[in-house]
């Protein structure tokens, strides 16, 4: 029913969001850029809105993931205890977090 064969990451994979500063639209919130998270779920492919909005044509459909972040990864020492955050991100916003083993 759901074709997830195009997805590069698997549930549980450590990922890092890219750092970017586009002039136009993006769905990678600034507070989550350059942060480490884990793949929480695989979602259906969706058109990349950056392309749709910035270029005025329908963006290509690429895999989307639920990505879970620890609050302290987002907010540092000021993070609230006992909470976590999930957002859905397009694959082009994510890279494998190769430092995961060393840092955790």
């Amino acid at each position, binding site marked *: 029913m759901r074709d997830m064969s195009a997805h590069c990451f698997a549930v549980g994979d450590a990922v890092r969001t890219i750092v970017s500063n586009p002039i136009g639209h993006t769905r990678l919130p600034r507070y989550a850029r350059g942060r480490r998270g884990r793949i929480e779920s695989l979602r259906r492919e969706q058109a990349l809105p950056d392309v749709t909005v910035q270029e005025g044509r329908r963006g290509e459909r690429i895999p989307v993931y639920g990505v879970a972040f620890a609050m302290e990864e987002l907010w540092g020492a000021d993070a609230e205890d006992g909470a976590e*955050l999930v*957002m859905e991100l397009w694959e082009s916003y994510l890279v494998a977090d190769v430092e995961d083993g060393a840092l955790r």
Partner: protein
Amino acid sequence: MTSDPHGGHDHDHAHDHAHDQDHDEDHPPHDTDAARVALTARVAAIETALLRAGAFPPEQVDDVIDTFTERLGPRHGSRLVALAWTDPDFRAQLLDDATSIIRERGYDLEGGDHRELPFLELRVVENAPGLHNVIVCTLCSCYPLALLGPQPRWYKSAEYRARMVVEPRKVLGEFGLKLPEGTTVRVWDSTAETRYLVLPERPAGTEGWDVERLARLVNRDSMIGVALATPADALSDAGARA
């Protein structure tokens, strides 16, 4: 389009402002009456200009208003939740792929109209002992409008959007929601085309209740995650208010 912070994100937003008559008693609007009057006048002027230009027929405006005030709304969300409480198979399907269920069966789940989602994906996230889910959209105000009706004003406020991702427990506390010690709060930021619905825990003392009666316990805020389902012993009161 690029000057629109929503970036044409979602037609959930089409009527945020034009027809939002939402006065939430618990969370009064923070704008002034003067601002509301000015906004209403601006919307009316835009609508008039568009109609005069032939952008769309007048009936279409009425049809859209009718859709969002009559055909869609929180009764659909409440029914989904009540069904999930009573039918373990349905609950499993809903948690696995809510999008497909709606597309196949319609919002009323009886094969009726409105199988078209005004969003691409629907995801139902389940509360459980030790886990509480809450929904926010930091980028704009994405929300499962078809299942919950128009957003409450506070959901669209900059304060809710900014603070829910930083200090959710504190914000929930301000909503009057005190969670048991040791409960993890999972915040869902609606960044992609998925809209989220929280499946709250079934209140105690509702054993043997049918779906219709249970659905009356499923208040809108409990499906956003800023409240729990209405307690069983409060139902007569809730019914009187409804």
